[in-house]
């Protein structure tokens, strides 16, 4: 079965510093991979997604992610974080089995705090 692991529960980064959030997935074939962001008390917003092709994916708000099949990873990066990036970040994998072709399985999330 598909699964997603986000090993870091909470990360604190100084404003202006670079960021990398880790994500590992378990899936038998080429996965559909997503990164979502959730601000406190809000719903989720899609940052970027990977289906095929170029393994470096550009998203909104200056984020990018790199798909590495050999490591089963899809880490999220940003070269310089802003205080407004403080939020919860979820990695997710698309589940193609069963009746729900568009089902998404989410990781447990990484909470990002920004140090002034």
């Amino acid at each position: 079965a598909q699964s997603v692991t986000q090993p870091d529960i909470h990360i604190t980064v100084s404003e202006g510093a670079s960021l990398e959030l880790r994500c590992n997935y378990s899936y038998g074939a080429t996965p559909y991979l997503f990164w979502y962001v959730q601000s406190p008390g809000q719903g989720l917003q899609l940052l970027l997604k990977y289906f095929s092709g170029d393994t470096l994916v550009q998203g909104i708000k200056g984020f990018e992610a790199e798909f590495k099949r050999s490591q089963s990873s899809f880490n999220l990066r940003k070269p310089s974080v802003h205080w407004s990036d403080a939020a919860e970040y979820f990695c997710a994998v698309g589940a193609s089995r069963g009746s729900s072709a568009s089902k998404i399985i989410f990781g447990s999330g990484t909470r990002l705090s920004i140090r002034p």
Partner: protein
Amino acid sequence: EAEVAQSPRYKITEKSQAVAFWCDPISGHATLYWYRQILGQGPELLVQFQDESVVDDSQLPKDRFSAERLKGVDSTLKIQPAELGDSAMYLCASSKLAVQGNEQFFGPGTRLTVL
């Protein structure tokens, strides 16, 4: 910009009471999802609709939860009776098509507290 609407935003209830949440997806979106997000965890799919039909309710606790989307537009999720363990954020999402990769747009959620 079109958004997914949910109400209420917050709900406090006592255990054994009935609660209901409402979701209005983005116009034209045929697929609607209800997720439950327990504090500190990622969202978990409860039920997925394609138009008015349920296509996946494998994770829905059917003894107490029910969901409907009678006219294939807005949807209601009900819990009866509520239990302490139901305290969570309930998120609704919609997408144009039920195909892999089609972006799901999320509403702001309903935060349920069961006392």
